[in-house]
């Protein structure tokens, strides 16, 4: 770029004035006039602040993008990089050392952490599971599913209603919920196979909403908005209660004093094991033909079909696997809360899981795990900013798509070379 670079202040000032004017229109009514019944209060001070911030920001940005550095940066973002980093064929992953370390630390957590921190970490792990499930559907197969919360709800309500009506416990429900959710995934997947992109997103969104509305309105079965209580997990038939109606409880059997944290420790450990199992399975699947087929389908469906890939099977398998992971997460959520009601399964929850996948990097397992913890544990720790949580998610999603559409952690994969002596 050899063109003369100089800041055109006139242009910047015009930009600033336009931005300020627009900010005034956008913020003026909604922030400046606060409805209070049919009356209103005014808050023009805040509007003035916001407009000033927008104008200052716009001025700085406008000037910056006229400098040499700014032009270079805009150029880089306009051509943001895509795809995966291919490692050298002989690359040895550092994960070999890190994974056992993480497992050991993870196993020690419940004995060190306080009960509150433990519950927060459990929540984080549940979202890791959800993120991993959605990552298969969105990140790997490229099918935008906005109704993922529906499978989550199937798992959670499966446990609560299965216990109430059929007497099924946590352990029997864990596999059943995964199967139930997978079946629901297939039922949803079949009709929508022909769709992709936006249509698929809307249909899955409708599916999630239908499940929520049915849970809310079918009061005779689901108890409507009041919710259903869910059973706690048991340790070889031993309950984690202070007293049990039938048989011994966990602390009586081992002759240790009662502590309400035991049940969270137990849930944590089981969840920890399940998350590792899912991580392992996913890690292998991605390297297998089916995983490669998902990714190929994400990149170009028509090319894949013309190369003889059975797109029905590929899409359905992604839907079903993703859904079953969501179902598992639902069971853990229900048993962790001890109670489920429809308000836990709104569209916002789907959007949150999507934000995890998007932030973590489409298809990147490590990224999803990190993002799940960032998006669930951080807001818990920063309670005073909790009301800005949704706003932050929204901004994050827009900014990430503009800045790094493939997420923070780039997908890496090992390269291949011909075996020695195979081809000359």
């Amino acid at each position, binding site marked *: 770029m050899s063109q003369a670079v100089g800041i055109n202040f006139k242009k910047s000032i015009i930009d600033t004035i336009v931005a300020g004017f*627009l900010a005034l229109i956008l913020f003026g009514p909604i922030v400046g006039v606060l409805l209070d019944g049919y009356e209103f209060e005014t808050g023009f001070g805040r509007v003035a602040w916001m407009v000033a911030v927008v104008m200052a920001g716009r001025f700085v940005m406008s000037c910056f993008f006229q400098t040499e550095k700014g032009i270079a940066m805009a150029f880089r973002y306009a051509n943001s990089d895509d795809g995966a980093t291919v490692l050298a064929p002989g690359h040895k992953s550092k994960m070999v050392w890190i994974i056992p370390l993480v497992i050991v630390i993870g196993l020690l957590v419940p004995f060190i952490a306080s009960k509150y921190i433990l519950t927060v970490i459990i929540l984080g792990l549940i979202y890791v599971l959800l993120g991993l499930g959605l990552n298969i559907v969105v990140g790997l197969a490229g099918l935008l599913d906005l109704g993922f919360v529906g499978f989550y709800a199937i798992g959670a309500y499966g446990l609560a209603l299965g216990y109430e009506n059929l007497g099924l416990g946590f352990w029997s429900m864990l596999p059943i919920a995964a199967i139930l959710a997978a079946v629901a995934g297939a039922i949803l997947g079949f009709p929508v196979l022909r769709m992709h992109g936006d249509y698929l997103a809307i249909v899955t969104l409708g599916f999630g909403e239908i499940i929520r509305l049915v849970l809310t*309105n079918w009061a005779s079965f689901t108890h409507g908005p009041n919710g259903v209580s869910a059973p706690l997990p048991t340790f070889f038939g031993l309950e984690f209660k202070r007293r049990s109606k039938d048989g011994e409880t966990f602390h009586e059997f081992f002759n240790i004093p009662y502590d309400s944290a035991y049940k969270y420790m137990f849930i944590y450990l089981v969840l920890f094991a399940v998350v590792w199992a899912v991580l392992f399975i996913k890690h292998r699947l991605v390297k297998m033909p089916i995983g490669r087929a998902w990714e190929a389908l994400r990149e170009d469906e028509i090319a894949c079909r013309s190369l003889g890939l059975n797109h029905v099977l590929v899409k359905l398998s992604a839907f079903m696997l993703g859904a079953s992971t969501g179902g598992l997460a639902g069971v853990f959520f229900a048993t962790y809360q001890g109670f489920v009601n429809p308000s836990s399964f709104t569209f916002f929850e789907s959007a949150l899981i999507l934000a995890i996948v998007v932030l973590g990097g489409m298809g990147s397992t490590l990224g999803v795990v990190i993002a799940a913890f960032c998006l669930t544990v951080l807001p818990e720790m920063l309670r005073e900013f909790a009301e800005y949580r949704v706003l932050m998610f929204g901004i994050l999603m827009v900014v990430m798509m503009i800045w790094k559409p493939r997420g923070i952690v780039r997908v890496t994969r090992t390269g291949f070379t011909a075996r020695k002596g195979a081809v000359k």
Partner: protein
Amino acid sequence: MDIVLQQLVNGLTLGSVYGLIAIGYTMVYGIIGMINFAHGDVYMVSAYITAIAIALLTFFGIESFPIIIIGTLFLTVAVTGAYGWVIERIAYRPLRNSSRLSVLISAIGMSLILQNYVQLSQGANQQGVPTLLTGAIRFTVGDGFVQITYMKLLILFISLLGMGVLTYVIQKTKLGRMCRATQQDRKMASILGIDTDKVISTVFVIGAMMAALAGVLITLDYGAFDFYVGFIIGIKAFTAAVLGGIGSLPGAMLGGLILGLSEALFAGLISSDYKDVFSFSLLVLILVIRPSGLLGKPEVEKV
């Protein structure tokens, strides 16, 4: 019999409003081939601005109904139009050449931003507007009667007027020609000297203005709203757009009317608890059976 007729009247007004919002989806889809996910929330913003405009106008001592309604319409449409422009500028324009998935996710982000922005500044409680227009025409039918409130007549009148003006603009004016040309082939249109970026912005503004029109009408009729109303009504309007054939203007209006009528009949005759389930199921069904809708052209996949 009177229930059916009454629900038909209700469905007609509801449907015309769905049609108005569906125009926003259909025009944006036609021109850049994506669903403007934040469109329902634009409607929600317009509901708030309606209430604010009414509160401001009454504060300045204006009592006569025609002036209030015209003032509210003007203010809401203008402000919401600005929202449409800014949304396109922030969430869509930087992603013009990205994959469709990225654009859709950015749109969902925008929708969350709008919802939370309104919730943070106006509070999560339900808000309301005073009833401004009362009275109704009643017909005796059999044992019961059917009533058409003046408000419903006004809704029908204004939404038909809005659709008429829009159809005229798209069919007859230079702006409309530019829109249609861009819709047909964006690259070619821009080679022939049409500023397609500007056209896309304009389409977003028009869509937002139509949603604003609907926002004013529904808010005045129904009276209560909160920051979450955009979600459900957004999906329903999208259903209407798909039903009529997304990308087609008359399709949006037709789809809106059919959806409104069938939903009102379902609510009146079968169950009002499940009327949203009905609309969503209808959406799934249309997309599975006839994704191109009633008046739409089948989409050709380009390799």
